[in-house]
């Protein structure tokens, strides 16, 4: 299937709408409609596998949350309910996050936003912020595996009885390795001349096309619907 390349600005609008929409919609039906929309976008922009997995998880969470809230609601189902509701709220947001940041290169992203004259003090931290989220998650995964390997894995008892020690076990390796990655990022950006004061030129042709306006309209439509 041919990949469609959406404009980063249109993608970003979808992401913002996803954040606002998912946090404010409590009925299942509009949430499902929006989830389907983002899933279609993910499939179109070349992420069919991970997109479908997330979509199915999202649907399962929505259905279970709906069943629990209609049939039983007691103290005991509360944590379970919270889990499913988290899934229902956050999975579409994660999907749209993947849509924006894993199908767009950082340089493409920056070029698009430079075109609407956003200052670099805004673009760079923002772009790096989103570029860095997956990195932190990866490091986190590695650290928790290493901790489990040494027999100090994250358990409820360790959090409850030795909170400070647990925090130390997590924070120190996390910060150390992340600072390493940051230094590499800085070096790479200096090598690419991001530090220069001159206006950057761009090889990519960045412009809004029909499909971009189309998905922006749909996204805004969802916002109205809410």
């Amino acid at each position, binding site marked *: 299937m041919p990949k469609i390349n959406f404009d980063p600005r249109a993608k970003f609008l979808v992401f*913002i709408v996803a*954040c*606002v929409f998912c*946090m*404010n919609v*409590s009925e299942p039906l509009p949430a499902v409609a929006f989830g389907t929309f983002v899933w279609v976008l993910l499939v179109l922009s070349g992420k069919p596998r991970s997109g479908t997995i997330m979509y199915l998880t999202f649907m399962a969470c929505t259905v279970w949350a709906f069943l*629990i*809230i209609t049939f039983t*609601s*007691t*103290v005991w*189902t*509360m*944590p379970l*309910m*919270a889990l499913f*509701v*988290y899934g229902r*709220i956050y999975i579409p*947001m994660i999907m749209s996050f993947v849509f924006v940041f894993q199908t767009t290169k950082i340089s493409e992203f920056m070029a698009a936003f430079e075109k609407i004259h956003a200052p*670099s*003090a805004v673009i*760079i*931290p*923002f*772009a*790096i*912020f*989103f*570029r*860095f*989220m997956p*990195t*932190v*998650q990866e490091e*986190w995964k590695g650290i928790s595996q290493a901790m489990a390997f040494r027999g100090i894995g994250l358990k409820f008892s360790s*959090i409850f009885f030795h*909170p*400070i020690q647990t*925090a*130390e076990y997590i*924070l*120190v390796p*996390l*910060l*150390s390795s*992340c*600072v390493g*990655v*940051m230094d590499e*990022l*800085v070096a790479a*950006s*200096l090598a690419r001349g*991001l*530090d220069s004061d001159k206006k950057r030129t761009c090889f990519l042709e960045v412009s809004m096309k029909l499909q971009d306006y189309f998905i922006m309209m749909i996204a805004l439509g969802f916002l109205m619907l809410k």
Partner: protein
Amino acid sequence: MNSKKLKTKDLIYAGAFAAIYIIILAIIVSVVGIVPIAYLMSPLFVGIICATIYMMYVTKVKKFGAILILACLFGLIMSSSGHFYSILGAIPIGIVAELIAKAGNYNSKKMFSLSYLVFNLTMIPPFLQLYLATDSFVEVSIEYYGQEYGDAIGNLVSTYGSMLLLMQVVVAIIGAAIGVTLAGKLSAKHFEKAGII
């Protein structure tokens, strides 16, 4: 060369540290958020844990604007996830924290610590919705987490009201104070030795 101005390098650090800060914060809040009273206490836990990240960031980027950028990113992300008051609170808090750090000439640990006590108040605005529009907040919680959870939160707020808000502020400052002490210990024990700072 003007070394006082934020350069690309510093902006990269700002974005990256904001990512770490917000991910850790999200993990803490979603873990403690399962219990209503612990959810209201989350500024305490966030203060304790995130202080280390903040202190590392400010010692790495000692320039005017760094703390403000962190606060703005924080506010934007929190606002975009449904807590609309966050950005309104985050900007003035960021400016005050920035000025405190500037008063110490970006060189004094004491002033950095003091600025974190202020900075951790960014955890309060996301809760303002709870006090200003209690009914709708409780309604949403009931829809999200079920009757029990929503009632528990609603009862807490209606019984204690503004006392609860005051307590959250106090707790945020206490959490930040504990966190800053912890950060000092950790950086002396690990980061300074390893030459990271």
